[in-house]
């Protein structure tokens, strides 16, 4: 018989573990008490299910029986103690009483420990159910004692007020710890959830950053840039022109600093301006008269920090979507100044402008999100048409971050 009970319990436990791992399995459990519990498990939150599953796995098999035995022993000792506190109660009564109360209490606590969300949502109903059960027990108890002793109802009824007080104490004794545990557990769960969410957000940002770095790397080694530049170097070198060495030096400079900056989250304006300059120098040799450029960075703003590679992205866009497609070529101007307590960095070109350049938005969303990530909503990127042609891109950085 014990074996059958053991098997039944193990089977049920396996079923519950399966539902804990995959709540959608609850629908396959055959109707009855098992289905009732399975459905309850399926309604729990994912975090609670996971906690309960870990707990169940930990106290599976022999450990469960050992715990039950230990608890039984402890409660029985309480029963023995109870036996000595009053007269003529016998042995069986107090021990049974202590075990019943004890296990009910433990079950309630375990329930509260894992199903705290539901308990907190339906605390009123829980207290009422508890009270109703206790009153029912009381009435049944009174009924049996009346029936057994055969004494006058009045002698028993006198004790009713006392008993009502007992019921109230019982309700409180269970409800209060259950609520406290639920409350604490819920707070803990909220903290864990918040932490998990924060971690997910951080992971997402890290992924985004890695992706943008990869995109930049790809942009630098894209065939058009690298092969055309190497072709220019080759042509200059063939004639022994000193400009070949100069162009190579600029290309090395550009590749080295872009790879270095790519690894940094933030760089100074001076560093970023130098990077853009090495890029523009390379492009200037390649494009000849079609490209002119200026860079103007006031010394006071040299140390201002900003996310790396932003200005380079804008300068690349200016060349690729502004100057290169333009029949007459044009100018790229980079400048920075203080304005209304903010640092404003401007990349303007006199190329073909916004409307005629398909794909000009490439990289701009990335620039925007990295600015907002670094400085909050006070930072931003604004685009406007140049006068008479071209595109003006303004980056605004709040000055508080310049300190």
């Amino acid at each position, binding site marked *: 018989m014990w074996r059958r009970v053991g098997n039944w319990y193990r089977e049920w436990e396996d079923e519950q573990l399966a539902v804990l791992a995959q709540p959608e399995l609850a629908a396959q459990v055959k109707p009855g008490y098992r289905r009732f519990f399975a459905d309850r498990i399926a309604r729990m939150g994912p975090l609670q299910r996971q906690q309960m599953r870990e707990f169940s796995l930990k106290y599976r098999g022999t450990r469960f029986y050992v715990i039950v035995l230990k608890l039984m022993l402890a409660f029985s000792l309480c029963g023995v103690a109870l036996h000595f506190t009053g007269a003529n109660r016998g042995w069986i009564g107090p021990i049974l009483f202590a075990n019943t109360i004890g296990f009910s209490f433990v079950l309630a606590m375990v329930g509260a420990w894992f199903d705290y969300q539901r308990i907190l949502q339906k605390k009123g109903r829980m207290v009422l159910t508890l009270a109703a059960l206790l009153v029912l027990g009381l009435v049944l108890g009174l009924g049996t004692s009346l029936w057994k002793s055969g004494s006058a109802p009045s002698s028993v009824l006198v004790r009713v007020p006392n008993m009502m007080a007992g019921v109230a104490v019982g309700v409180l004794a269970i409800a209060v710890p259950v609520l406290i545990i639920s409350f604490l557990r819920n707070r803990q769960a909220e903290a864990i959830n918040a932490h998990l969410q924060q971690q997910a957000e951080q992971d997402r940002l890290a992924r985004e950053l890695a992706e943008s770095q990869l995109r930049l790397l790809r942009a630098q080694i*894209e*065939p*058009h840039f690298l*092969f*055309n530049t*190497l*072709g*220019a170097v*080759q*042509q*200059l070198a*063939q004639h022994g022109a000193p400009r070949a060495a100069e162009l190579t030096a600029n290309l090395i400079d550009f590749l080295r600093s872009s790879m270095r900056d790519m690894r940094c989250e933030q760089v100074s304006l001076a560093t970023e301006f130098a990077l853009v300059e090495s890029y523009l120098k390379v492009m200037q*040799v*390649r*494009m*000849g008269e*079609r490209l002119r450029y200026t860079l103007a960075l006031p010394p006071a703003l040299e140390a201002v920090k900003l996310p790396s590679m932003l200005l380079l992205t804008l300068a690349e866009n200016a060349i690729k979507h502004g100057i*290169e*497609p*333009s*029949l007459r070529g044009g100018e790229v101007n980079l400048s920075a100044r203080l304005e209304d307590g903010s640092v404003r960095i401007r990349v303007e070109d006199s190329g073909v402008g916004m*409307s*005629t*350049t*398909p*794909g000009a938005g490439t990289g701009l969303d990335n620039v925007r999100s990295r600015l907002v990530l670094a400085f909050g909503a006070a930072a931003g990127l604004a685009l406007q048409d140049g006068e008479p042609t071209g595109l003006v891109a303004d980056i605004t950085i709040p000055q508080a971050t310049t300190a």
Partner: protein
Amino acid sequence: MTMTTILVAEDEPLMRERLLEMLAQCWPEAEVVQVAENGNDAWDGFLEHEPDVAFLDIRMPGLSGLEVAERIGKLAHVVFVTAYDQYAVDAFDAGAVDYLLKPVQPDRLERAVGRLREKLSPAAVSAPPADLGHLLHHLKSALPGMRPERIKWLKANVGRQIRLIDVEDVLFFQSDTKYTRVKLRDSEALVRTPLKDLLSGLDPDRFWQIHRGIVVNAGAIAAAERVDAERLQVLLRDCDEKLPVSRTFAYLFRD
């Protein structure tokens, strides 16, 4: 035997210089008749000189190399010069279009020149250059950033006013040195852009180039008539002017 004539179109000066030097070395008997820095000049120069071979950079200001090739059609042999990566270049291989990867290396150029010499040899004269129309259409959709921007409105100075002209209303465009004469149903205007630079913004299916200096709205054409054994002219619906069709574009009106 006449000398082979070549057009070279490349927007970067050093790459242009390099290609020209290498061509002079490995194809000394050919003559470069036109060097263009952008697609618009390339097409205009092509119409002027009608070379046998065109080396076209794909990414250029104005008309792209693909668009120039599309217009050249069967009139010359085209070799593309490109920095596109292998993936995009696979599309060329499939269509047997000749191409050179940038930076162009001498051995590759020699091979391409060898093939061109074969195609141009007297024995092969009966075989005209391949028509790349279908393939170019496919390439244009396959390569990034190759969808041209069309002009919708033209701005023309008329006295002290600036008039906005809907491109659709234009009967024809006529080149007038640095300006372009724009003929409408009831009036005309001058636009401050040369015709060769307007071309890249016009839909070639709707606006037909019939002469180096004339682009006509196909919807405005009433008929084409023969002037003599060689020459054709176009008659318009709402206009008395008769427009000459050059020999190059006579195929548009052949059935």
